[in-house]
């Protein structure tokens, strides 16, 4: 043992003796690192795993068994709950048998995952009863997991893994059992974690205690010469405070230590603005420039480090007390500023303790702005539409929260009510994010401010075996300018058992959330023109079957979200009664205009009326829309947009069309089946493969059936037959592209009948 190690142990023992001397219970929260001698999963032998399994079987208790049963849907072999009247005894035969049942169901596929860290959050300040951790896999991003814990005995917790990032089948565990070996000596503290899932080999790993904190963090507070600075506060100085609030000298550093961060404050600099002349206020770009010059730790890199500037006033004036100004450039959230010449230094008239009021507001503002640096939103911004940015998990607003991230004047009763209950802390949901979210979401300079909170990563792989797939009807997801974009969405059954689903579930926009993000732009939620309330129609999907649906997402009540040339990423979430599914992210490109004609037509084409005409398969009343669609047909006859335009022009002619008149009566316009059939045949027969590619096979088949039926009813059996044969030919072509589509088109809608 080296001298350094001996010194470390001695220091730790002193720390332990001090804790014992004060009779404090041992706190075990903090960060643990995976023991280097752990047999990681790739190297695990059956013997090693069996040994682990037997050890852990000793603690596989009733609660865990219930948890496993409750969290599964019957497809796996389950650990059955033991009778409450027969409580499990440590090491009992029944417990061993229970775990062996899991082991027998194991698929046992070795995957080279290496465990890294464990964050255990069960005691100490503001415990969140949560564990999180990560695994690394060669050539892949780290896999991050989070579990909600329940106590299951002395220093023992069980819990379900509710979050995984990224979603990957590599990590298939659904529950954890954590047993801590407590010790007042930190170096002797250990955690043993068993990862479990029905049907998957259990994995037990040993971790050693590393730190009472969850992350390290440092900040540097620089002060402009004409500004004040507040880094700590007397919590008892202002009379309006919670009666139970400890009166103490509380520093910013200590606030963040209590939030779980091993916080250090670096020595700051004084910034002389004597040469600034009459311009004594600060703009964002001036602050960003100053950060690069004056912050001793500045780097265009993610790092757990932040610059805090105490300046006099922002360009906005006295109404801005501070700002996390750094949403500039590639590394956001590295810099914040507090303006001590703003309202935070102007106690309101009648304030009985103005000096204490000012100190408290400056302190609150500094911690608040730094909170934004940790990617924390305001308390009222957590529940918001996707075009505000993407949250890391769905989180309810906390408009009444007594948190550093809430505005005191915003709560009921205003500032007086806020500070009467304010305990100088962050809310639990904020602490959960700071301590347990994937570190890149939180670390300064990493994920963008209010972005990259990982919509695509929030949901674990579906435990039901259902999956959601988003694709295009072509080899490359490249769309021409003006071309309406139709995507294919499929709800798959990947399980080995049949699954009952609602056949209409993909047709219900209420259940779908479609996010469109243009490269370097903000995410927007596609908002369809109409919602449909459809009767639930249960169907059984056999293993491998899926339900297809087309999605026309070019336009909606937001306008034309995909009109501009560029690269986009699209992702869909589907809300099922029992779980949420998230599709793969789909990247597509919209090409630049190929002619002046396309550019000219765009002005009349990218309108709400044309969007509605295309979305609702045509109109007889929106004249401007029809004019624009006719122009596309005439001027861009070979363009994919012309195929969509022809369909939208033909469909309203194909049947008697009701028009609501000014006197609220309906007027029926006669069907023009012959003319409609002519246009439809142009769209669906002349270039059938190209038409199917741009309309999508689902819609192509629908339109063919629709027009073939109409033409046949009108006596034109020849044209109807031509259309039907074209559909068969297109389906054959599609089989070469994607063998399963024909299978699905034939089987999925009839799944219930076939059974």
């Amino acid at each position, binding site marked *: 043992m080296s001298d350094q190690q001996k010194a470390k142990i001695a220091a730790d023992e002193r720390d332990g003796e001090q804790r014992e001397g004060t009779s404090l219970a041992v706190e075990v929260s903090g960060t643990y690192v995976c023991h280097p001698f752990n047999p990681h999963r790739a190297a695990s032998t059956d013997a090693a795993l069996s040994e682990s399994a037997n050890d852990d079987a000793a603690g596989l208790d009733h609660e865990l068994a219930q948890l496993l049963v409750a969290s599964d849907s019957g497809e796996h072999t389950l650990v059955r709950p033991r009778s409450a009247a027969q409580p499990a005894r440590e090491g009992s035969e029944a417990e061993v048998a229970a775990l062996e049942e899991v082991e027998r169901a194991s698929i046992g596929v070795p995957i080279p995952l290496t465990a890294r860290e464990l964050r255990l959050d069960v005691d100490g300040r503001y415990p969140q009863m949560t564990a999180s951790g990560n695994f690394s896999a060669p050539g892949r991003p780290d896999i991050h997991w989070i579990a909600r814990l329940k106590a299951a005995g002395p220093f023992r917790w069980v819990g379900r893994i509710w979050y995984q990032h990224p979603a990957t089948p590599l990590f298939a565990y659904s529950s954890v059992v954590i047993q801590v070996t407590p010790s007042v000596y930190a170096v002797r503290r250990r955690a043993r974690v068993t990862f479990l899932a029905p049907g998957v080999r259990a994995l037990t790993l040993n971790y050693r205690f590393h730190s009472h904190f969850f992350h390290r963090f440092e900040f540097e507070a620089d002060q402009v010469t004409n500004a004040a600075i507040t880094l700590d506060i007397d919590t008892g100085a202002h009379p309006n405070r919670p009666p139970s609030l400890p009166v103490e000298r509380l520093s910013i550093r200590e606030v963040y230590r209590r939030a779980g961060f091993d916080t250090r404050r670096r020595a700051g600099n004084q910034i002389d603005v004597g040469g600034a002349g009459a311009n004594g206020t600060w703009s964002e770009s001036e602050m960003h420039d100053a950060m690069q010059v004056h912050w001793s730790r500045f780097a265009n890199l993610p790092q757990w480090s932040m610059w805090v500037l105490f300046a006099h006033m922002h360009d*906005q004036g006295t*109404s801005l007390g501070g700002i996390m100004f750094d*949403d500039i450039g590639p590394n956001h959230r590295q810099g914040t500023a507090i303006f001590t010449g*703003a*309202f935070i230094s102007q106690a309101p008239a009648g304030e009985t303790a103005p000096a204490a009021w000012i100190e408290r507001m400056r302190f609150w503002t500094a911690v608040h702005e730094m909170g934004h640096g940790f990617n924390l939103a305001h308390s009222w911004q957590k529940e918001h539409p996707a075009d*505000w940015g993407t949250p890391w998990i769905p989180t309810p607003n906390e408009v009444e929260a007594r948190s550093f991230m809430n505005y005191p*004047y915003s709560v009921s009763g205003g500032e007086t009510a806020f500070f009467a209950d304010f305990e100088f802390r962050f809310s639990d949901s904020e602490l959960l994010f700071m301590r347990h979210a994937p570190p890149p979401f939180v670390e300064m300079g990493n994920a963008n401010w209010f972005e990259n909170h990982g919509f695509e990563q929030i949901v674990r792989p579906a435990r039901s075996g259902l999956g959601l797939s988003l694709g295009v009807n072509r080899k490359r997801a490249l769309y021409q300018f003006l071309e309406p974009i139709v995507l294919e969405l499929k709800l798959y059954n990947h399980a080995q058992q049949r699954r009952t689903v609602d056949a209409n579930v993909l047709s219900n926009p209420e259940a779908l959330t479609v996010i469109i993000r243009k490269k370097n732009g903000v995410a927007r939620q596609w908002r369809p023109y109409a919602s449909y309330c459809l009767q639930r129609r249960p169907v059984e999907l056999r293993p491998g079957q899926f339900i297809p649906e087309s999605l026309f997402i070019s336009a909606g009540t937001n306008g034309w979200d995909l009109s501009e040339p560029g690269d986009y990423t699209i992702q869909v979430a589907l809300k099922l009664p029992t779980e949420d599914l998230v599709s793969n992210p789909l990247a597509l490109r919209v090409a630049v205009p190929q002619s002046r004609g396309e550019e000219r037509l765009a002005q009349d084409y990218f309108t709400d009326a044309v969007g509605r005409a295309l979305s609702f398969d045509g109109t007889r009343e929106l004249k401007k829309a029809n004019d624009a669609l006719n122009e596309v047909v005439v001027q861009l006859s070979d363009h994919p947009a012309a195929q969509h335009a022809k369909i939208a022009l033909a469909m309203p002619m194909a049947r008697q069309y009701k028009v609501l008149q000014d006197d609220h009566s309906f007027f029926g316009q006669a069907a023009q089946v012959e003319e409609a059939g002519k246009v439809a045949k142009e769209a669906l027969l002349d270039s059938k493969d190209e038409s199917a590619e741009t309309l999508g096979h689902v819609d192509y088949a629908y339109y063919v059936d629709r027009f073939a039926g109409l033409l046949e009813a009108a006596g034109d059996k020849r044209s109807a037959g031509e259309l039907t044969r074209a559909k068969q030919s297109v389906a054959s072509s599609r089989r070469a592209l994607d063998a399963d589509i024909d299978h699905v088109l034939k089987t999925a809608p009839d799944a219930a009948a076939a059974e």
Partner: protein
Amino acid sequence: MSKLSVDLQEGFQNDTVRVRVDDAAALEREGLSTRRQIGLAARLELEAPEGSFVLHVEVPTRALATSERLDAARGAFVGVNITAGGKLELRVQAKEFWYA
């Protein structure tokens, strides 16, 4: 005339806003987006008549509009928010809104 301060706060994303005082067009601004870290898109300073008047706020980019009868003597500071549910809401107070 008195001064009326209209703060366009949460929920704006590349939006157009039109403000009228009684029947007179007062201001129109385009391309407004909320800065999330302070919860403010823009502050509009208007002239309002003494006494009672109706403030109309319209966000044509979202087909939203609302109006409220105000009295400059009771509150000259208006916060306009588009809620997560897609509603346009006004909050009126006598003190200046502040941000952080």
